[in-house]
């Protein structure tokens, strides 16, 4: 083995730099190619970096499918929303696909509360939160125009992502006692959507 000549040492000192710059360029271009060349989505469930996950206990049934409502009719139902994601997130509630132009809708108020206890099967045991217990209390058309997306959504439930967290929401509708005769046979509908986005 020959002795390390200073020339070789100096050459070695600097040869790494251009080589590495080329290497970094190759890394960036191949990574960019693989990331952006395909325009189709290729979903995977192998998330390693954390997820936002949200579910409810309604088993894909409607919270209310109420018929034969008369002036003064009222009912409450509860639904449990559970966040199981591993990322801290904000959960908001908003209305989707509102069909609330009828006389019935205009004369129906909705109250949305959040708290603990109870569930989709029964509201028994539901306790509204001490602060911010009532998220909304106004007419059905107002809900359909006021809370329409995540930005305008109701509530500010922030999850830590450390463990599964649940909240129970109680929705109460009341058909006003003075609802006019023209509301007969009317319908009204809207969807309640809870959305979680990571912070």
């Amino acid at each position, binding site marked *: *083995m020959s002795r390390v000549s200073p020339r070789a040492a100096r050459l070695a000192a600097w040869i790494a730099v251009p080589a590495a710059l080329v290497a970094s360029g190759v890394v960036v271009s191949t990574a960019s190619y693989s990331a952006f060349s395909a325009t189709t989505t*290729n979903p*995977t469930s192998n998330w*390693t970096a954390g997820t936002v996950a949200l579910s409810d206990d309604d088993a894909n049934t409607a919270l209310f499918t109420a018929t034969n409502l008369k002036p003064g009719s009222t009912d409450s139902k509860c639904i449990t929303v559970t966040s199981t994601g591993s*990322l801290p997130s904000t959960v908001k509630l908003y209305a989707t696909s509102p069909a609330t132009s009828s006389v*019935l809708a205009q004369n129906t108020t909705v109250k949305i509360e959040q708290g603990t206890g109870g569930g989709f099967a029964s509201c028994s045991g539901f306790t509204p939160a001490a602060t911010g217990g009532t998220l909304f209390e106004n007419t059905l058309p107002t809900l359909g125009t006021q809370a329409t997306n995540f930005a305008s959504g109701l509530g500010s439930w922030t999850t830590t992502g450390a463990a599964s967290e649940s909240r129970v929401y109680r929705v109460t509708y009341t058909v006003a006692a003075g609802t006019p005769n023209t509301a007969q046979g009317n319908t009204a509908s809207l969807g309640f959507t*809870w959305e979680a986005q990571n912070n």
Partner: protein
Amino acid sequence: MVSIAVHGGHPPRDVLHQAVDWGRLVVATAARAVVATLLGLALWSAAPALLGWHPTTVMTGSMQPRLAPGDVVVSRPVAPAEVRPGQVLLADDPDQPGHLRMHRYVETGTDGVIVTKGDANPQADSTPIERSAVHGVAFLRVPSVASPVLWIREGRWVEVATAALALSVVLLLCTVDGSLRRRGARHRGSGGTDDRSGADRDGHGREARLASVAHRTVGAAPDPTRRSLRPARHARGTAGRAPVRHAAARRASGLAVVALVAGGGAALAPGQAEAAPFGVTTGTSMRITAYTVPTVTTVSCTDASGSVVIGWKYTGDPARSFTLIDDTGAVLATADGQATSATVKLSGLLALGTQRTVRVQTNAGTWTSAPSAPVTIQHTSILGLGSGTSCVR
């Protein structure tokens, strides 16, 4: 090592030293390659900002597997007309003011808005983005380079400390061949006016601190034979004022470069907002339908000695009452909610077969039903005489 020294003296020991020297050269070169690669990646992350491009750090896995958290993605501004479905866009997040969204353009919504979706998200983003909110199209991906930003943000200090330690070790390894390079310069300078020459007569003097570090790691026990071969520590202690100053200057400049790179990286790449929000929804619905007060059926008319009995059938929720009305809306008779008939007797002193149409209306609460099918009755009376009220068939 000791036995070699006893047996043969210099040649075998030289071979060993040469092997160690080559090893140091390889290690230092590899370490420099690692550092230069990191710097190159940092350059790719930050330099496009000078062109007005937009580097962002991917903070979530919503675009996996194409983009991973810790990646830096550089977006290139494009004209709104050039934005096409399939592209990964960087845009203001309408859901969270001040945040950026980096998701794929999946379809065009109503009014030309852009519907986006994270590849790994189960649903498209609930709120579409306006074309004017688009900052650019993702163009370059620098993998994993901003992972420390992610770790700091998530408070993963173990990873941060590990990365810092690894970087320090690599930076230190970059310098282990310093003596090999400088040896030649000293040889050349030994006959001239170089002030280092006095201390470096044997060609080993300037390895100073780094060489001693290397030796400490190679063999912890001081070897008496070493001292004569390598008077580095002597040089440092006795004649090495100037070399120490130079070494200090080198160290300081090295630290300055590292600080500059770290500071520049911190100022440029992570300063950008996070991209790629992760969203998921769940929901339920409500549908309410109002009652329709039923109308009576099978309305009949039966004569009953000067009056008529109007009968009907009613099925439905119990009614409060029934009202019998004529064409003008005048109430001819009322009956309670359980009744299925009512007697109508028209009054008037002079009537010659005056016909009236009778309908039955159901009253439920404050609501009333639509009028029933009509039956016609007539009234014949001359000063209270005549057939009275009768059915018309």
